[in-house]
């Protein structure tokens, strides 16, 4: 466990050493946040609610999606395909580490930095713009929310890992990855609440793992779900984690059989 903590610490330092890139990344996130904040503010100017969200809830969703995007979607899993294609993976295979745990540790360090930064941004922005955040009224909401966030982090890591493993079979995984990430972010509710969409589209998306990455945790935070819905959602998340973990193991094992260590 200590060695993974060391990996986490190393990547934390590395992440903070490239300050220009880091601030640039945060700036991009801030622009998305600002554009959606003003969009929803404009849409809620002459009305009290939109798609079931009152003004305070909708703005909290926008701020929350900035935080969850930073936590759930941030990571270094996109490097996995490159490491496989260049043979860098051989170095990891020779070390006494579990590559998946190693990849998760470095992902977590990236997520921690981004989460911290997103929290600061949201605090500053809510003060500057005078935003009233819709905080949860019950303490157990926080417990469910943290559980759902943890589930979302694990789910996204497993999905990214599977996509990274495409590198075992092709050197051209960049394009499909770009495409999949867009699909995932849109269907996760990382730009707007999925309740805005038509009912058939919502029903279709609910069958995918993506709504459990952002939309579900944020709806828990906003206390828009009853205990039955929360329990069902958490169980579905757990089921998806099991399915994805099984898929990851299968892809990893088959990938290792196909791995030829080119470029190492």
């Amino acid at each position, binding site marked *: 466990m200590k060695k993974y903590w060391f990996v986490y610490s190393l990547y934390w330092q590395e992440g903070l050493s490239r300050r220009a890139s880091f601030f*640039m990344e945060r700036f991009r996130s801030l622009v*998305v946040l*600002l554009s959606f904040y*003003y969009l929803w503010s404009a849409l809620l100017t002459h*009305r009290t609610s939109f798609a079931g969200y009152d003004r305070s809830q909708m703005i909290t969703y926008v701020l929350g999606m900035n935080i969850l995007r930073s936590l759930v979607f941030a990571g270094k899993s996109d490097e996995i395909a490159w490491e496989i294609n260049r043979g860098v993976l051989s170095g990891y295979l020779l070390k006494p580490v579990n590559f998946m745990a190693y990849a998760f540790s470095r992902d977590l360090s990236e997520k921690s930095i981004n989460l911290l930064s997103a929290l600061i941004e949201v605090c500053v922005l809510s003060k500057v713009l005078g935003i009233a955040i819709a905080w949860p009224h019950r303490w157990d909401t926080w417990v469910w929310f943290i559980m759902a966030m943890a589930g979302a982090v694990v789910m996204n890591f497993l999905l990214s890992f599977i996509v990274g493993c495409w590198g075992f079979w*092709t050197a051209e995984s960049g394009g499909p990855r770009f495409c999949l990430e867009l699909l995932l972010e*849109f269907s996760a509710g990382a730009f*707007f609440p999925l309740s805005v*969409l038509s009912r058939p589209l919502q029903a279709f998306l609910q069958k995918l793992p993506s709504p459990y990455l952002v939309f579900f945790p944020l709806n828990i935070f906003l206390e828009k779900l009853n205990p039955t819905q929360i329990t069902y959602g958490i169980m579905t998340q757990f089921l998806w984690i099991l399915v994805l973990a099984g898929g990851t193991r299968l892809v990893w094992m088959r990938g290792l059989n196909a791995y030829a260590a080119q470029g190492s």
Partner: protein
Amino acid sequence: MGKYLRIWQRLAVMGFKIQTGHPLSSSGYLLGKFIRIVFFLVFLVAIFKHTQALAGYSLEQVALFFLTFNIVDILAQLFFRGIYGIRALIREGDFDYFLIQPVNVLYRVAFNTVDFLDVVTLIPVFVITWIVFKRIPGGIQPGRFCLYILLCLNGMIIALAIHIAVAALAVLTQELENTIWIYRDVMTLGRFPSDIYSSKLQYVLIFVIPVTVMISFPAKAFLGRLNLLWIFHAVLMASLGLWLSLYFWRYATRKYTSVSS
């Protein structure tokens, strides 16, 4: 002129061969670009199921702002994509090589990369924009349509000025490769009508980073919501921006002392 066309053709053929050499990756990126546009349009349509207007604009009008953003953004990427890689050109010494070629260096850098995926992406964007034009009350009025095209071209000139300034910064500092991404990100604020933003932000988007001039002005001109004064402002901004950026570029290349070769 013929020489420059031949150079562009040669670079375009090279770019095309690189992209067709990676069919899976290129298809993924292309599909991703389409998905981004389609999803955003789906989002806009979904919003208008719950409301009649956004800042006084109907669905078709808001879609026009979004499509204009795509047209200006994609065209700028198509023609000035090479600027994105200027730092690598300088670091690896290729920029020095360009300097001794009997070709305008800025032209050579800007067109160094031609992305054919952008050409393919533009086709559906143009088709959807045409459909949206026809659905806007009043239809396509030749005067407004011409003004729309001219202001889009004006927006392209501003985009060119920004790209030249970024390139000049890169030549001077051998850093700031991320500066172009700041421009790209701020550009995304143009996806929505500028009227939704606070007055301070609107001021910044008109006078500091003229995203509104590049995107909202053409759309507003087509909708007949732009007065003559703003049209003059747009032309002045583009002319002044281009002149200043070219001056800055000449200054930067004069100060350049070669960092690698």
